[in-house]
């Protein structure tokens, strides 16, 4: 059992100092900006909650919120099952599995602005491998002007980028399962699904919560990759929340940009709060109700 000792806060001081400087102070500044109309940083005047009211009622905000939610849903819907399936195969594949695990981790270390550059040159119809293959098959892939092609490219690219995270964390949970569990299941004649549902899934539940959380916030706020692919186009069809915010900042509309930023922050923190509550409840019921 851990002992109660409030002097432990002394050990947190370095971390607190850093986080206050790069996190808390900027956050309070954004909050302050969001209640002002700002021409230059020396001439701001108080407008109260005006920015918030105009955001909440703006159809453009609703549309980009819906697009971001749809993108997150697609990303989670594709990457989560795919990542778990890959991890289930790799964990049985021995040394080859470990090698492939390292391979799927490679996209994670590519700088984010390089990823769209790589993919755009891949689907280039004249010089790209995939682009030429699709042209040869007679597929007209046009991510510039056909909205759903842009969406497909974004989801495939994001899957390429982040599948490794899902696989690594699921693999970690799966490789910790003692062989005796699987032997017992085989003796009982358990189906493949039952093995997954009652032996494997509980072991990767904790890791899956982290994956869902990280994948949700990162896809919900995707900026660098989406901007480079088509700058929110065609015709605003991929203008996600963060791309809309980027335009506000570039337009020097700081007050409104700050209010947008606060709204996004509140959405993300609310989701995280719900998530943590659900995770806690799950962990508690798994421990048999002890708090």
């Amino acid at each position, binding site marked *: 059992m*851990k*002992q*109660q*000792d*409030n002097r*432990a*806060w002394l*050990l*947190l001081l*370095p*971390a607190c*100092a850093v*986080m206050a*400087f*790069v*996190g808390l*102070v900027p*956050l309070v*500044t954004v909050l302050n900006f969001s209640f002002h109309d700002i021409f230059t*940083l020396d001439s701001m005047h108080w407008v109260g909650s005006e920015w918030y009211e105009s955001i909440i009622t703006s159809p453009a905000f609703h549309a980009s919120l819906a697009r971001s939610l749809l993108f997150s849903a697609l990303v989670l819907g594709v990457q989560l099952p795919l990542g778990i399936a*890959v991890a289930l*195969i790799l964990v049985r*594949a021995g040394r080859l599995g470990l090698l492939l*695990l*390292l*391979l*799927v*981790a*490679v*996209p*994670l*270390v*590519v*700088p*984010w*602005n390089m990823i769209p*550059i790589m993919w755009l*040159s*891949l689907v280039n119809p004249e*010089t*790209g*491998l995939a682009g030429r293959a699709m042209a040869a098959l007679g597929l007209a892939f046009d991510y510039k002007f056909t909205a759903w092609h842009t969406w497909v490219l974004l989801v495939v690219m994001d899957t390429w980028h982040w599948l490794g995270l899902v696989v*690594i*964390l699921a*693999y*970690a949970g799966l490789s910790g399962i003692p062989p005796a569990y699987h032997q017992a299941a085989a003796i009982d004649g358990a189906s493949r699904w039952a093995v997954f549902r009652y032996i494997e899934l509980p072991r990767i539940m*904790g*890791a899956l919560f*982290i994956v869902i959380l990280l994948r949700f916030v990162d896809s919900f706020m995707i*900026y*660098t990759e989406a901007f480079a692919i088509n700058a929110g186009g065609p015709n605003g069809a991929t203008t996600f929340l*963060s791309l809309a915010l980027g335009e506000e*900042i570039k337009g020097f509309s*700081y007050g409104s940009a700050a209010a947008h*930023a*606060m709204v996004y*922050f509140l959405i*993300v923190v609310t989701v*995280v709060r719900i998530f*943590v509550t659900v995770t806690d409840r799950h962990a508690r019921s798994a421990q048999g109700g002890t708090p």
Partner: protein
Amino acid sequence: MIRRVLTALALVLLAGFILMPLTQTILLSFTATLPHDGLREGQFSLINYRNIFATPALVDSLRNSLIYVLLNVALCLAAALPAAYAFARFRFVGDRHFLFLMLAFRVTPPVVLSLPIFILFAQVGLVNSPVGIALVHCLFNLPIAIWILESFIRAVPREFDETAFLDGYSLPRFFLRHLIPAIAPGIGVAAFFCFVFSWVEVVFARILTVTDGKPITMAINALFSFQTDMGLVMAMTVFSLLPGLAMIWFVRNHIARGFVIRT
């Protein structure tokens, strides 16, 4: 039998999917994409790699990136180790709230904080400096480092600490002499994630380098112009991958451990 064929097929497809963009990148990096030095377009050549070292801005950017990333790793580990120890060994007022706050900062989108961070850092002279980027990357790396180190410290039995303290070790000396060697794989994993997340980050690295200290990512962006030398871009991209690949290789036996979130 059919099962094994299907599994093998799935693995081949997976490897192909991951390798395809990488293959494209590597192929282009060895191709002359602009007609210069008497080379035809599309001809195999090492010219792009030679051009990197002939361009001071590109060489500088490699150095700039390495400096702030290593600084960030050092900062995160130094601040995270005592914090992780506190969480692994003690209960205290507000501990759960602090962890939730860390989680909230980890998931805060950079674009939300980019403007005030630029203003704040401009006031204290941290723009265009690797120290500024190293500090701001702590925003998402410090929470991760704390989680990872905490789960590794928790695995060390408490008696280990008590023996050292009975031997007369002070807390800092205990950290250096006993704790760090005992959780070396954890330090490695934490350093890996900090390194990678700092290396790939773009939003903060862009706004904090206005005139000087450009990281490799921005140096590559600056290569785009009316007539972009894609081969050079791809050769730089290959370079930008190398440190990450080296890190993956170092932690290959531990990568799948120690990513446990607690709140």
